[in-house]
């Protein structure tokens, strides 16, 4: 049996195993959210009536309860929710007076755009600066990069966002400070691109330090490994040793970390979107939380969890493709 067949079958198994983990997790998370929502003292029916509940007849209140199904046991309500959720129907959002799927659908694209570009930039920055720092280990550049990374890692991302907003949008007036387009301007490529620069940069800069430090650390460790020492002793030029030998092995764990980093990325995007009033899902999340809109908040949380699980799955598959030993061992 040749290696390719083994690895393909192994990857298939890996995907199955991962899915076997992901589905129960999603069920568990959604059920826990459901129970949390039910346990909160907040009553959607009372909210629907507002002050008028004082004058409303008990029959009418009971009628609404029955219509909404909130008089059923929690498990039955959950199963009903689940049946609809499988078809991407997450109910209606109380705060937006729209179906949840529409609220999310309108905003998700912009969030994905921001996150995808920001993440790619952060990765590139991490690779470049991390390699540079390791290459020039101990030099002033290394110290500068490392110190900046630690500082940025400690700085709250929304504070970085405000700083960027002040300097580039308010003080220098180079770039627009928020929103998707200028007021009243139609959505066009140029408009979105200029409005994207600041949020994307802040997201990338807040995410990059961790990658920088990781790449640097792993490269330094790999400098002492046998195959790197061996390559050097065969007389290969240093830049080839780093790019062809040291980087290759030290980037393997990087793949899994991309998956592990997703929750932080989503958190960062949430805060960056808030600072720059980006029309993504962050505003919807905060509104949903402030207005106790559990239908929307729950759907968003389940969605984010699904994204994280999917990212982990993808990272594992990439890892297995890059290093077939993983599948054979595991």
């Amino acid at each position, binding site marked *: 049996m040749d290696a390719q067949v083994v690895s393909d079958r192994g990857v298939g198994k890996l995907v199955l195993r991962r899915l076997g983990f992901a589905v129960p*997790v999603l069920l568990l998370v959604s059920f826990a959210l459901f129970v949390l929502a039910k346990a909160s003292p*907040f009553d959607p029916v009372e909210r629907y009536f507002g002050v008028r509940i004082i004058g409303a007849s008990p029959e009418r209140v009971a009628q609404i309860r029955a219509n909404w199904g909130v008089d059923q046991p929690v498990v039955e309500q959950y199963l009903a929710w689940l049946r609809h959720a499988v078809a991407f129907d997450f109910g209606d959002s109380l705060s937006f007076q729209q179906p949840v799927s529409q609220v999310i659908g309108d905003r998700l694209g912009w969030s994905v755009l921001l996150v995808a570009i920001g993440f790619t930039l952060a990765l590139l920055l991490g690779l470049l600066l991390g390699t540079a720092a390791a290459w020039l*280990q101990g030099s002033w550049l290394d110290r500068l990069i490392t110190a900046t990374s630690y500082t940025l890692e*400690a700085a*709250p991302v929304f504070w970085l966002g*405000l700083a960027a907003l002040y300097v580039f949008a308010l003080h220098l007036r180079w770039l627009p400070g928020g929103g998707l387009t200028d007021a009243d301007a139609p959505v066009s490529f140029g408009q979105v691109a200029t409005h994207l620069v600041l949020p994307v940069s802040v997201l990338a800069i807040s995410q990059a330090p961790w990658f920088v430090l990781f790449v640097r650390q792993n490269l330094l460790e790999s400098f002492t490994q046998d195959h790197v020492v061996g390559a050097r002793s065969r007389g290969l030029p*240093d*830049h080839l040793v780093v790019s062809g030998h040291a980087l290759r092995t030290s980037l393997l764990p990087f793949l899994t970390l991309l998956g592990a980093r997703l929750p932080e990325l989503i958190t960062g995007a949430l805060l960056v979107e808030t600072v720059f009033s980006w029309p993504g899902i962050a505003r919807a999340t905060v509104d949903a939380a402030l207005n106790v809109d559990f239908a929307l908040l729950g759907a968003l949380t389940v969605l*984010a969890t699904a994204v994280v699980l999917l990212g982990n799955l993808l990272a594992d598959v990439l890892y297995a493709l890059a290093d077939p030993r993983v599948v054979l061992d595991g």
Partner: protein
Amino acid sequence: MADLAWRRAPRSRLAAAAPRSPRWRLIPSAVVLGVLAAAVLVVPLVVDLDQQYVDLAAANRPPSARHPFGTDELGRDVMLRCVYALRVSMTVGLVAALISSVLGTALGALAGAVGGWVDRLLMRLVDAVASVPHLLLGIVIVAVLRPSLTAVVISIGLTHWLSSARIVRSEVLSLRGRPFIDAAIVGGSSRTRVLVRHLLPNVAPQVLLATTLAVPHAVWHETALSFLGLGLPPHAASIGNMINDAQRSLLTGGWWMSLAPGLVLIAATLAVSGVGGVWRDRLNPKRRTELTW
């Protein structure tokens, strides 16, 4: 590129990973931590100044000799408010980190000591919770409990116990096979006694370390929640609330109101994780990593 690190000490393969002296991290971190602790603990006791003192005549002043960090839109001194904000944020961070450590230690010890399906179940739970972005889970918990100090502390406690649970479990698992545990069992100790008298005391240093390293995370979490308006009540000066308030002033040019709390937070975070990092390297030199400095 003649001066690659490995060139400098060609005879020793260890040279490439030679660590810098911990003093470089320890001394500045300890000094900053000491200054901040003195400010946070002593200033409110000694100085007879009211952080809520409103002086509209002195509103929106940039940094000056009288107000080193300037004043906010109500004329309150930003530096004094920073001290009180750090006090609030640090208290929240410490309490929340303690709660999450206790929770994590209990679950981790249970998983490691009992083993079997309990262990598998608990570790699946850890993986499941780890899949939900922290801040989002925190927001949900705050939404259920309505924004308040207690809600914030609970929300941080319930989202940050994972790392201590993992650490305690792996420590307990590695300790379980040691001869002194066998000796205790042979000596007639009950399961509880082995756990409480022999396993937990040996895990304690690691737990304390994990708690210390969790404090900056907890502070960060509180700050983020407060910034989103889902944290502490608006009148309480916390770092997040200050930055949130300062957003409006930023549009009219008041950069100092958000600059100061951010810098204070960065200094505090770096100092805590600096001291924690040196401590960790002493405790487990093999697991040395520079990801937290």
